[in-house]
């Protein structure tokens, strides 16, 4: 699996992030439930995959995110990167690649074929999640519950940041 060399799982960083995880979990869980309320079409499209446990594991962070979409009562937890939840659907790759996949900037199939991202476990659920995000046109601002006009400014700002941060070609 490709990815820039970074302090991935350094023990100290993991300990600190895990200790600080509760506020992040609360924010992310609230965001997830907000999407469920405002965009029921998204969860409807997700279907059975809404009951699956997803692990999103940025390869350049010492922690990962365990996501259970679960309709209106789903949650997000911060876990150690090495956590092995059985029967989960796991997606891993560099953080910027994962973010670009999330907002549809990057073609998921290319990212997979070129080994920038990796899928383990429940392939069908990952396909359902990918297709749902593709169709949903959610942005990070949606997740953060920011309404217009701030949402558009935030999205533009994030786009700008991502464009500057990512490598020249093939994110």
């Amino acid at each position, binding site marked *: 699996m490709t990815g820039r060399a970074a302090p991935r799982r350094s023990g100290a960083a993991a300990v600190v992030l895990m200790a600080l995880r509760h506020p992040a979990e609360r924010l992310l869980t609230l965001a997830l439930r907000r999407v469920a309320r405002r965009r029921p079409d998204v969860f409807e499209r997700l279907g059975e995959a809404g009951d699956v446990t997803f692990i999103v594991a940025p390869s350049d962070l010492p922690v990962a995110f365990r996501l259970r979409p679960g309709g209106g009562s789903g949650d997000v937890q911060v876990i150690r990167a090495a956590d092995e939840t059985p029967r989960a659907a796991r997606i891993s790759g560099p953080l910027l690649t994962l973010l670009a996949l999330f907002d549809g900037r990057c073609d998921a199939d290319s990212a997979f074929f070129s080994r920038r991202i*990796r899928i383990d476990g429940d392939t069908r659920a990952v396909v359902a999640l990918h297709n749902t995000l593709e169709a949903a046109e959610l942005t990070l601002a949606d997740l953060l519950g920011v309404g217009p006009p701030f949402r558009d400014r935030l999205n533009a700002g994030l786009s700008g940041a991502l464009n500057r941060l990512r490598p020249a070609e093939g994110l």
Partner: protein
Amino acid sequence: MGSIELVCPAGSPAMLRAAIEAGADSVYCGLRDDTNARNFPGLNFSPAELRDSVAWAHDHGAKVLLAVNTFARAGAGDRWRASVDAAAGTGVDAVIVADLGVLAHAREAHPGLRLHLSVQAAAGSPEAIDFYAEAYGVKRVVLPRVLSVEEIAALMREITVETEAFVFGGLCVMAEGRCALSSYVTGRSPNLSGVCSPPEAVTYTEEEGALVSRLGGLALDRYAPGEPAGYPTLCKGRFDVDGGLSYLFEDPVSLNAMSLLAALRRAGVTAVKVEGRQRGKAYVARVASAFRAAIDALDQGVDPAPFERLLSDLAEGGRETAGAYRKTWR
């Protein structure tokens, strides 16, 4: 629209808009069930989304074609007929059909609804095409991907219906609508269930440092670290014949026939088709833009070759082919 119609895939309303904004003349899509041959979880349109998307497309000068192109399940024909009925009600510009019973229903119940013959009908000869044209009034046939350009040109001299040829995306090396490889291994196939090599049967495991892709537990390929990986579609697997490993059926490459656009147009092809409803907005925007530019270039008498290179990183295995269009493929 230029001298050749550009038909692009839409796996969702968002992807439909991306395709049309990037220059597609028409888009094709399916409903969210096994009446179409890309029945992946989370993909496709609800009837309401279809209706809204058709209106949006028409407002933007584009057409929508609805794929009802799988074979009805024995005893469940009602659902396929209902999909055709739903399509007729949304104002789609045509339905793409393969099944004889569904064609008969469309012809009888909706004589004004334009009928396109799906590639799943495997109509690759003038006699087969004429049969469908005479029996059901199909106006356009999507050509099987096993014909060379010369064969297409010869075919066009003998038929009167329009033709649509695949030019980009996943490659199918077997006569479509008649391939049971997937169901032999998984119980599901494009014919029975609208999917080939369904995701629930797919696993990727790390074994001795290599990534092994499996379908229904059968190992289909093995990738060294850093080597481009592929989806375990059966016909793209690596197999052992007489002790030698090879991609016997087809290399894991994708189709890119942009260099053959001029030849296809000379042969009389009405429309060129991009495969990939399951690929997403980023994919369709890039492919539609590139082919739009290439077709426009062609119409202006300019060489479209430079646009072909724009798309190579989208190919499976990172490699491309012009497929059966060149006879050396056989």
